[in-house]
């Protein structure tokens, strides 16, 4: 008996085993598993208009769009935060500049850490 024949003989016996040797309780569980799986059956195709009286098939892409939208929002938020903090820093140094020019620098500015920071900022 060659390899193919032996393989097929074994397969036949396995078929018999699958038909006869599976417990009834297991068959019930397989049946209920199948039913549970089929409850999730939703054909995902929808027809989309692609113009010129033609249509193309496409799947649900809601999750993908939601993900992209979320990513875009995060990027926008990070960008806006960065710009805002830079603006605040500039505004702080501008206020010190103005006071020095007006010779109106309060004495506590000299003991303030931010004043040293401003001196080093050049």
């Amino acid at each position, binding site marked *: *008996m060659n*390899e193919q024949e*032996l*393989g*097929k*003989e*074994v*397969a036949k*016996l*396995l*078929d*018999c*085993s*699958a*038909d006869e*040797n*599976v417990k009834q309780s*297991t*068959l019930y*569980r*397989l*049946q209920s*598993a*199948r039913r*549970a*799986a*089929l409850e*999730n*059956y*939703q*054909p*995902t*195709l929808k027809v989309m208009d692609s113009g010129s009286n033609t249509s193309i*098939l496409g*799947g649900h892409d809601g999750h993908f769009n939601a993900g992209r939208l979320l990513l875009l929002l995060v990027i926008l938020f990070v960008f806006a935060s960065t710009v805002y903090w830079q603006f605040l820093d500039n505004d702080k140094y501008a206020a010190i500049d103005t006071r020095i020019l007006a010779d109106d620098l309060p004495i506590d500015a000299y003991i303030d850490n931010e004043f040293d920071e401003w001196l080093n900022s050049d």
Partner: protein
Amino acid sequence: MIALATRQELSDFLAETERRAYKQAMFAVHDDHAALDIVQDSMMKLTVKYASKPVEELPLLFQRILQNTIRDYYRRQKIRSLWTTLFSAFASNDQNKDQEDFNILETLQIKQESNFGQDPDKQLERSQLVDLIERSIETLPARQREAFLLRYWEEMSLAETAVIMNCSEGSVKTHCSRAVHALAIILREKGVKL
């Protein structure tokens, strides 16, 4: 025009495949509950993700999902057994059954069932033969078993089997050949002639 699988076709396909899928999972994991979970997971993944596929593609897709789910189970078992080994010196070795040196033939038992209307001797003989073959298949290394079952039981082509197993067609041939030779040796040793 693409003929998509209807709910009824999908149901028929699963009904026809579920027993073999369960047996395949049993050969791989040796645990009734785990095998049922694997088949249920595979069915669920097929209906949720591939319901829009043509009916002809379902066997290949389902087998691919099933084999991947079995591999996932192996991975989880490996991690679990690693932690068990690390934290307990008394861990049992039950989870290493899939190793090649495990000889399940030593646990062979004769079934006590009998069917009316058939020669009891022949019935018993066939039942023992089926048991022997099932247990022999369980002793095969995972990749050899996978290749053998896909090629000869599921009647997949070399190319399809290679896709499912994520290897070359040459590797599939090698795995199949080794599996058949190993089975032939076991059957010969037990004095069985098919």
